[in-house]
């Protein structure tokens, strides 16, 4: 068991001397190998001592004092100015906006609980909006999808979800785009905001769901606020990135014409960054959709409730039916925003086949049709609530249930042996290597590796992070989580490179895979947890699979975009000089997409970390379990909060180390793993 790990130890840093046989890298290799040897020796000799284990039901004094937060909120809700002037009004505003959209599309609180606009009107109106901002194709898609949601028997749930997503995205953009612009224009703002965004993205959603529900009470308002916290970072980051990545000479050309800062922003930076900003809006919308589903845990209405119920009764059919609705919603939102951004490209209007005047006529006519549909849906019952006779939902549920039954009974031999071999062969030895080594040895080893990769500064940061984790009293649980995360991330990056290269090289593969990736990214984790729970049982393995499914799409997409962005002239030069496709990939495309690969590894890691908590619902243990237990048991509230913070610091540690490793002149994939060793 240990020999296996030791072999890996020596193999991994070895690419370094091969590539750049200069003095500096070889010194780093020596340091890394030295760190590995110290670790192995420490594990073998001091095995099982100073492991800082804390049984799951035990608390430290810190956890007990964090528990007080709960009582504090209860005692101060009525008269504390923070509540009176900030939290309570904020809740009221968000609640009102959310309720506006809910009564418009989903259900009003009176009588039959029919919405202001019935299903027929909703379909017409949304179809028209899709046509107005996009094109006829996405309009058709919107109409088809929303009608299909009705056939699934989930129209009301879907519109609840849609209303909440709409609210959350509006608020996210209201906050996110200005902040993103600021961060793009000013380096100082960027340096302040980046760690905050890291924090927001690494903090597992469960951690802030509990305090948010305490402060803002359960219901749509907390759900929307939680969603905004989760969905804002992508749009902020990408807006800033878009503005920042405008070529220096373009900027200087503009400056030399004497533009002021504001003019530069409006005429150069924002238009040139538009594609990236829209990508950010895309990502934020997707994030909002998946978070709204999770927020079902704090009484957010909609499809999430259906999925949560299915998870609790292991009802694969219902989960998949609702999951399908969520994916379809995601596809609509994605395609419509993308089409809108295409229209916005300069010259798009001129290339259209229809002249502008005709387009207005068409728009006017279709609007009239949509309004008639809205009016119909308000005056006749068949157009208000989706007719129950056309419900094919039960058929879908039935079919999926029997398919999953078949898989569970016929594939169990295969799935069990796969799970057992991965768990006992890789995960358990690696985990015990992390948990059974004395903590001071590991801290030293990680600091040494950090020094080798990024110098004193990085070593100090990592040691500080580990120090906080020890202070939080959760060292052992953190190591369990670290083991699962690293195993999952390595697998994610393998998938990321393989599929990312395929997609980056071929437009057709890209078009084929992208919807599947969107599905993997937006389908709430709960949905695929259910079938995997059936196949693999409640184990860490299931949690790792869930993490991979969640994180791989991001890694693949970023890699693919990086590869596709390489200038075609470079590729042609390489091909014309006689390179084989394999050489083009390894010598040109991967090295040139280096930055994207680093970003992919980073994001993959963060996504896996976020998933580790959700994975705790199916037996992941470690910090994830502490967070989940803290969410549902008030006596463990403080420990859950501490565990959430520990995950953040673990995230910062891994993030900084991958970044440093990526900045070093090495092949990324090899280095991305080395902090783990």
């Amino acid at each position, binding site marked *: 068991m240990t020999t296996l790990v030791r072999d890996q130890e020596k193999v991994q840093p070895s690419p370094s001397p091969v590539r750049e046989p200069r003095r500096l890298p070889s010194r780093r290799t020596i340091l890394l190998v030295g760190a590995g040897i110290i670790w192995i020796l420490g594990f073998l000799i001091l095995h099982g001592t100073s492991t800082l284990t804390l049984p*799951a039901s*035990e608390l430290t004094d810190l956890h007990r004092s964090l528990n007080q937060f709960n009582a504090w909120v209860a005692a101060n809700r009525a008269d504390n100015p923070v509540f009176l002037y900030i939290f309570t009004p904020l809740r009221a505003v968000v609640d009102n906006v959310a309720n506006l959209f809910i009564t418009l599309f989903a259900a009003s609180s009176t009588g*039959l609980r*029919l919405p202001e606009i019935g299903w027929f009107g909703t379909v017409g109106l949304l179809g028209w909006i899709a046509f107005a901002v996009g094109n006829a194709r996405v309009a058709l898609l919107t109409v088809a999808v929303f009608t299909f949601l009705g056939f699934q028997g989930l129209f009301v749930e879907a519109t609840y979800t849609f209303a909440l997503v709409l609210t959350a995205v509006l608020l996210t953009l209201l906050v996110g785009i200005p902040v993103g612009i600021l961060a793009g224009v000013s380096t100082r703002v960027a340096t302040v905001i980046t760690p905050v965004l890291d924090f927001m993205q690494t903090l597992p959603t469960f951690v802030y769901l509990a305090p948010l529900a305490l402060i803002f009470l359960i219901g749509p308002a907390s759900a929307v606020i939680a969603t905004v916290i989760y969905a804002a970072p992508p749009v902020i980051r990408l807006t800033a990135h878009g503005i920042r990545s405008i070529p220096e000479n373009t900027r200087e050309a503009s400056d030399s014409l004497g533009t002021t800062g504001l003019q530069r922003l409006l005429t150069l930076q924002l238009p040139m960054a538009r594609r990236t900003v829209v990508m950010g809006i895309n990502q934020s919308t997707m994030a909002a959709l998946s978070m709204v589903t999770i927020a079902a845990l704090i009484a957010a209405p909609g499809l999430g409730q259906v999925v*949560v119920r299915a998870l609790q009764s292991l009802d694969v059919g219902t989960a998949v039916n609702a999951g399908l609705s969520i994916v379809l919603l995601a596809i609509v939102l994605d395609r419509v925003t993308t089409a809108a951004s295409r229209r916005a490209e300069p010259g798009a209007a001129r290339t259209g086949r229809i002249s502008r005047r005709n387009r207005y006529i068409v728009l006017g006519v279709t609007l009239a049709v949509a309004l008639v549909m*809205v009016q119909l849906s*308000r005056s006749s019952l068949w157009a208000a609530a989706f007719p129950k006779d056309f419900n094919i939902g039960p058929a879908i549920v039935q079919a999926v249930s029997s398919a999953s039954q078949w898989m569970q009974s016929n594939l169990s031999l295969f799935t069990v042996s796969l799970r057992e071999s991965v768990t006992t062969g890789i995960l358990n030895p690696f985990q015990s290597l992390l948990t059974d080594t004395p903590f001071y040895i590991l801290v030293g080893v990680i600091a040494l590796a950090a020094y080798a990769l990024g110098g004193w500064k990085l070593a100090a940061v990592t040691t500080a992070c580990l120090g906080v984790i020890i202070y939080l009293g959760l060292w052992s649980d953190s190591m369990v989580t670290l083991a699962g995360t690293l195993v999952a991330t390595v697998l994610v990056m393998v998938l990321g490179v393989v599929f990312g290269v395929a997609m980056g090289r071929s437009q057709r593969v890209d078009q084929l895979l992208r919807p599947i990736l969107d599905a993997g990214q937006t389908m709430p984790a709960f949905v695929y947890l259910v079938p995997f729970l059936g196949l693999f049982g409640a*184990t860490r393995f299931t949690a790792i699979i869930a993490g991979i499914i969640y994180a791989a799409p991001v890694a693949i997409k970023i890699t693919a975009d990086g590869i596709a962005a390489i200038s075609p002239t470079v590729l042609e030069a390489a091909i014309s000089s006689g390179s084989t496709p394999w050489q083009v990939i390894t010598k040109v495309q991967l090295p040139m997409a280096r930055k994207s690969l680093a970003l992919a590894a980073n994001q993959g890691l963060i996504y896996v970390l976020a998933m580790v908590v959700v994975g705790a619902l199916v*037996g992941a243990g470690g910090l994830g379990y502490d967070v989940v237990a803290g969410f549902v048991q008030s006596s463990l509230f403080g420990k859950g909060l501490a565990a959430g913070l520990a995950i953040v610091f673990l995230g910062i540690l891994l993030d900084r180390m991958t970044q440093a490793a990526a900045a070093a002149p090495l092949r990324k994939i090899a280095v991305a793993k080395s902090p783990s060793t």
Partner: protein
Amino acid sequence: MKKAGPLLKRTIPLMAGVAAAALLLTGCGGASVNQVAAAPAGAGDAPCGSVSVAMNAWVGYTANAAVYSYVAKNQLGCTVVQKDLNEQISWQGFASGEVDVIMENWGHADLTKQYITDQQVAVDAGPTGNEGHIGWYVPPWMAEKYPDITDGKNLNKYASMFTTSESGGKGQLLDGDPAFVTNDEALVKNLNLDYKVVFSGSEAALIQSFRTAEQNKTPLLGYFYEPQWFLSQVPLKKVALPAWTEGCDADAEKVACDYPTYTLNKVMSKKFADSGSPAAKLAKGFKWTNDDQNSVATDIQGGMSPEAAAKKWVDAHEQTVKSWLS
């Protein structure tokens, strides 16, 4: 300017459309289906309005809530909103008005103190008539083959039998949803048992594990509870732990005794209790036996919708239901 041109031209018709739609909506407000339909909906004897019922995640709870919802909806004309929530989160809903009633509550002394005694946002709505037991159970085949396993003192002897790849070399004690009432981790530690608690995540997963264990005759030790419909299919055997005495479980970290017998009760929000709604009266009156709950739960588990199962029970027990309402 080049950008602003087309952008503006595209936005203007959109804005006009939205404005027109808004006008249409307000203008035709009077003719809405919503208002027209609202009138006959409140045709019952007393105004009931809307009741939010928390839905906790076990089938026994679903049975209680289904029968309550069915009666409230069909005999009192209430609008019933069911919300799937964890136990702890449900209690938080009393303050915000998101939750009106919890139909089966297992103890929760800490929450009772916080929300009923201290904050006074909730009130006890009386017992459901069910008696709850929590404990550690083994599948029947194990109790037969190893008769002394049902004594907690002998568990260490069998620990090696229960090891799995998840239990880190110790015996596995399978728990349910982390949200369920549990002292198991403290018990394992304080009774010096060579076991590790592993969470299956849900009632459904627990049941599935016990079912497979009995079918394949594989060892399994797990957390379970009564009343539970599953026990009539596979009569799991309870493992005896040191008997519960008053106050032995006061400190959650030092518990070394079995779970108490729970008198299950209902809890409702103060606002709802004071509203005089007939649904609040129904919640107070609701009372039935373990057998009643098991029969409804078995029907639900057998594939019947909760509403249909509730209807079946209510139709067969008209007298009982009548006594709740008077």
